[in-house]
């Protein structure tokens, strides 16, 4: 009798234990990633909950206790800063990118090259100084001797690269600085103009596992391994990203 009554109780207990012991699913994983990774990350793994934004904003959110498990930034600065504070594991580089100048397809500002912007009087979309795309753009302009174009053109400062691309694609800006991968996603509406190689800043994406209470550690590790896998590297390459040597 006791034996018979005990059966459902054991089953319930086993179920509860099973639940607590099971690894958290990918859907429980919170990935905070740079806006420029939106298309490729959701293609590589659609399961996690994503928060795409400017890397500096994401870093700030994580520092303030946001429930991120993985952080992927568009420059080493944010991920390394978080690592130095003990907020994430040692970041690894998993992709690279480069900057292009984008103009609307009909090019109303008649922008032929980045040096066309010297004449001034155009509407220009760039990232804010704190967001990686904004920092990279300023480095590039310095190396080209074109910092002054930020004074001689009407500049709209955007919080992330997606906003820059939208502005140019919609024709609200005559030109903008974006990653080549973002330009590809709207190639029907914008034209990408190459920038001199010597002036290109090294755009490196880094990824790390966030350190906090209640983290989905196994899910985070699995996601980072997936992003560094051969199939993900193929997807990144297909999306136009560059790849660091495998290591």
């Amino acid at each position: 009798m006791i034996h018979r009554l005990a059966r459902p109780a054991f089953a319930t207990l086993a179920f509860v234990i099973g639940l607590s012991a099971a690894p958290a699913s990918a859907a429980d994983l919170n990935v905070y990633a740079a806006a420029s990774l939106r298309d490729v990350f959701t293609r590589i793994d659609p399961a996690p909950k994503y928060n795409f934004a400017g890397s500096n904003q994401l870093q700030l959110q994580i520092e303030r206790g946001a429930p991120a498990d993985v952080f992927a930034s568009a420059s080493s600065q944010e991920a390394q800063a978080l690592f130095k504070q003990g907020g994430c594991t040692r970041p690894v580089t998993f992709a690279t990118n480069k900057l292009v100048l984008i103009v609307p397809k009909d090019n109303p500002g008649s922008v032929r090259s980045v040096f066309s912007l010297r004449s001034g009087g155009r509407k220009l979309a760039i990232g804010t100084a704190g967001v990686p795309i904004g920092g990279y753009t300023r480095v590039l302009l310095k190396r080209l001797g074109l910092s002054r174009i930020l004074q001689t053109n009407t500049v709209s400062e955007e919080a992330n690269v997606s906003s820059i691309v939208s502005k140019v694609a919609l024709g609200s800006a005559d030109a903008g600085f974006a990653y080549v991968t973002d330009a590809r996603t709207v190639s029907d509406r914008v034209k990408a103009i190459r920038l001199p190689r010597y002036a290109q800043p090294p755009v490196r994406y880094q990824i790390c596992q966030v350190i906090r209470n209640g983290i989905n550690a196994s899910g985070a590790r699995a996601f980072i391994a997936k992003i560094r896998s051969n199939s993900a590297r193929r997807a990144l390459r297909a999306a136009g990203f560059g790849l660091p040597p495998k290591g």
Partner: protein
Amino acid sequence: MCGGWIEYGEEHAQVIEIDRGDFLRLGVGGLLAGAVVPATAGAQLAKPAPQDDDIAFLSFATVAERASRDFYRAAAKAKATGFTPGERSHLRRVIAAKSTHIVRLDGALGADAPLTEDFVTVLPEGAVKTKARSLALGGQLEALLVSVYLNGVSYAVDAGTRLLLGRLLAYDAQALTWLRLRGGKASPAGLASSIDLEAAAGKLDGFLSTPAFPD
């Protein structure tokens, strides 16, 4: 010592073994350009503190000097080019000098220095296969540098940066003269022209590759 080359240390002039023939071949302009640097080298030199767009000239220079050094390395290494032992020895000295110049440029740029391990120099197929081709390509690179330095000494805001660009101009003008003379060309009769960074960037891009980045 080959071909009337003028050598000088970073702080003290060492003008070496120039005979009358060398003097005439190099041309008075080239010699004076070389002599200006040693003359000022003993004095306290203004250190570069680049301002505004001065960084553009230095950034271009550090990448282009690396491309130029890579050319000299390839030329010095190539077996069948027909360079004499003396000429090879000269090429090696230029490699050493350019390495020093790159360190100076990177020092002037500080945190703004490009991560040049990201760049790989791509020389055209067969560029150092013969002496003539080597001299032509080397001359192309040195002429590019000289033209950009001329632009830089005209427009750089900071005096220390201008001085560094001027010293590099003097050195590379000599290197260019050496290459031209070895190629059987006469010293240029006119004055060198400057080139703006837009045109220069287009020329330099042909020698650069960034394998870890999208192309």
